[in-house]
C-alpha cells in the first residue's frame, strides 16, 4: 500500500514538474510567462553566486523566442557579465534566437567588444537562421585570432545557402583546415549553393589532397547543376583533376547518367586511377547502355588489375553478366588471384538459364 502511495505521489510530482517546464514553451498565460522571465532575468542581473547566473541563462533559454526581446535588452547592458549570460542563453536556444541575429552580428563584428567571441558562439548555436551574419563571420575567419577564426568557421558550417559566396571565398584561405571546412559546408548545402561551381573547380586542384577531393565531392553534390562541369573535367589536362572528377561522379548517381558517354571514354584514359573510377561509376544501377556495357567488357582486358576487377564488379551490378560471360570466363585464368576470385564469384552467382 505504502509502495502504491509512493508511486502515485511520484507520478504527481513528475506531472507537476513537467507542466512547469513545458507550459512556458506551449504558451502559458502571458502574465505567468512574463513573471517567470522577469524572475530569471533578476537572477542574471543579481546572481547570489556566479554559477547561478549561468543556470539562469540556461533556464531563460528554455523559454525560446518569448525570452528573445529581454535577451536583446540584456545584450545592451553595461555589465559585461550580463551580456555574456545573454549570449550564452541565445546560443543555447538554437534557431529560436533568430530575432537577436542582428544584435549578435554587430557585437561579432566589433573587434574591440570583449563579447565578440561569445556573440559568435551564440550565432553558432542559432545555426541556419544566423545566415545573415555570414559576411561578418567570413571576415573573422580571415582575422589573426586563430581561436575566433576557427569558431567563426564552425559557425559558417551551420549556415544556409546565403553563406555560399562567403564559403566560396574561404576556399582561398591559406589554412587547409579552413579550406576543408568551407568545402565540407558547401557539400552540405548541395544544389542550394548557387554560383560556387567555378570556385569548387579551382579548389579541385588544391595542393591539399583532402581539400581537392572534397571539393570534387562538393561539386558532385550540386547534382545536375554540376554534371556538365564534372563531365568536361574528365578531359582536363591535369591527371589529378581527371581522377578527382571521375571519383566524384562515381559518388553521385544523378551525375553518372549524364556523364556516361564521357565515362566510357575515360575507360581508355592513360591513367589507371581514372579508368578505375570510370569503371566504378559505370556500375551505377539502371544507367548502363549497350555502348557502356561494351566498353566495360573491353575494360576486362585492362592492364591494371584493379580496373579489371572493378569492370567485372560493375558488369555484375548492371546485370550484364550474360553479355560479358565469355570475357569474364577468361578472367578465371587472370594472373591476379583477386581478379580470378571476382570472376568466379560473379559467374557462380549468375542465374541459371
Amino acid at each position, binding site marked *: 500500500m505504502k509502495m502504491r502511495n509512493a508511486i502515485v505521489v511520484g507520478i504527481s510530482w513528475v506531472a507537476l514538474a513537467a507542466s512547469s517546464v513545458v507550459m512556458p514553451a506551449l504558451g502559458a498565460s502571458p502574465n505567468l510567462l512574463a513573471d517567470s522571465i522577469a524572475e530569471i532575468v533578476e537572477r542574471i542581473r543579481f546572481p547570489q553566486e556566479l554559477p547561478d547566473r549561468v543556470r539562469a541563462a540556461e533556464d531563460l533559454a528554455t523559454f525560446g523566442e518569448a525570452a528573445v526581446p529581454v535577451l536583446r535588452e540584456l545584450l545592451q547592458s553595461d555589465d559585461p557579465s550580463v551580456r555574456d549570460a545573454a549570449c550564452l542563453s541565445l546560443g543555447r536556444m538554437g534557431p529560436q534566437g533568430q530575432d537577436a541575429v542582428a544584435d549578435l552580428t554587430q557585437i561579432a563584428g566589433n573587434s574591440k567588444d570583449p563579447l565578440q567571441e561569445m556573440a559568435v558562439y551564440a550565432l553558432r548555436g542559432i545555426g541556419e537562421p544566423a545566415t545573415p551574419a555570414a559576411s561578418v563571420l567570413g571576415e573573422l575567419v580571415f582575422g589573426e585570432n586563430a581561436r575566433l577564426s576557427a569558431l567563426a568557421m564552425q559557425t559558417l558550417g551551420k549556415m544556409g545557402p546565403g553563406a555560399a559566396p562567403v564559403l566560396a571565398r574561404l576556399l582561398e584561405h591559406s589554412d587547409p583546415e579552413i579550406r576543408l571546412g568551407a568545402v565540407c559546408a558547401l557539400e552540405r548545402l548541395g544544389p542550394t549553393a548557387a554560383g560556387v561551381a567555378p570556385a569548387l573547380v579551382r579548389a579541385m586542384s588544391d595542393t591539399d589532397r583532402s581539400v581537392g577531393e572534397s571539393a570534387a565531392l562538393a561539386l558532385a553534390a550540386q547534382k545536375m547543376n554540376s554534371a556538365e562541369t564534372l563531365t568536361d573535367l574528365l578531359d582536363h589536362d591535369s591527371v589529378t583533376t581527371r581522377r578527382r572528377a571521375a571519383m566524384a561522379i562515381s559518388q553521385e548517381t544523378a551525375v553518372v547518367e549524364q556523364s556516361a558517354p564521357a565515362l566510357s571514354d575515360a575507360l581508355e584514359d592513360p591513367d589507371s586511377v581514372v579508368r578505375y573510377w570510370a569503371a566504378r561509376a559505370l556500375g551505377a544501377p539502371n544507367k548502363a547502355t549497350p555502348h557502356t556495357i561494351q566498353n566495360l567488357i573491353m575494360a576486362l582486358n585492362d592492364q591494371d588489375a*584493379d580496373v579489371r576487377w572493378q569492370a567485372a564488379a560493375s558488369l555484375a551490378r548492371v546485370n550484364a553478366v550474360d553479355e560479358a560471360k565469355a570475357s569474364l570466363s577468361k578472367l578465371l585464368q587472370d594472373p591476379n588471384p583477386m581478379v580470378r576470385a571476382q570472376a568466379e564469384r560473379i559467374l557462380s552467382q549468375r542465374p541459371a538459364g
Partner: protein
Amino acid sequence: MLKHCAQTICVVVILGGALYFGQAGAPTNPAAEVASEDFFNPSWAVARHANDSLVEFMQSPSYVEFTDALTQVNHTREKLMQTAASGAGDSEAAAQEYRAAVQRLQAALERVKERVAPGELSMLVHDSAYQARMEMNDGEGSVPPFAWELGPHAQELTP
C-alpha cells in the same frame, strides 16, 4: 520546496529517458571501436561500418596487396627485433628486409588511397596505423611509431 523537488524528479526522468533512448540510436564511432584492437593486426581493417562498395573493395587487388604488405612489415619488424635482442644473426640484412617491407607498404597504401573516396579511408584503415604510415611518408621529422619501440635502433630505421 515541492516545486523544486518536482522539477528535480522531472529533470532526472527526462534526462534518463533521453540518455536511454539516445544511446539506443546513437551512431557508433568506428575509430573508437577498433581502438582496442591490435595495432599491427590486419584484422582491424574489417570495416564493420562500411558501405557495400567499401566492403566489396576489401576484396580488390590493391586492398589485398595492402594487407599483405602490412603483414610483411609486422613480420620483418618482429624478425628485426629478435635479431637485435639476441645479438645473433645478420641485423643489417634484417633491417634491409624491414625497410623494403615498409616501402612496399607505402606504395600499397598510396594505391588504396587513390581508389577510395574521402571519408572511406578512415573506415578502411585504422586511424593510428594510417597516421603511422603518413609519418613514414613525410620522410623526415619523425620516427615511425613502430621504430620507436626498437629503442637504440630507431635512428637507423628512420626512412
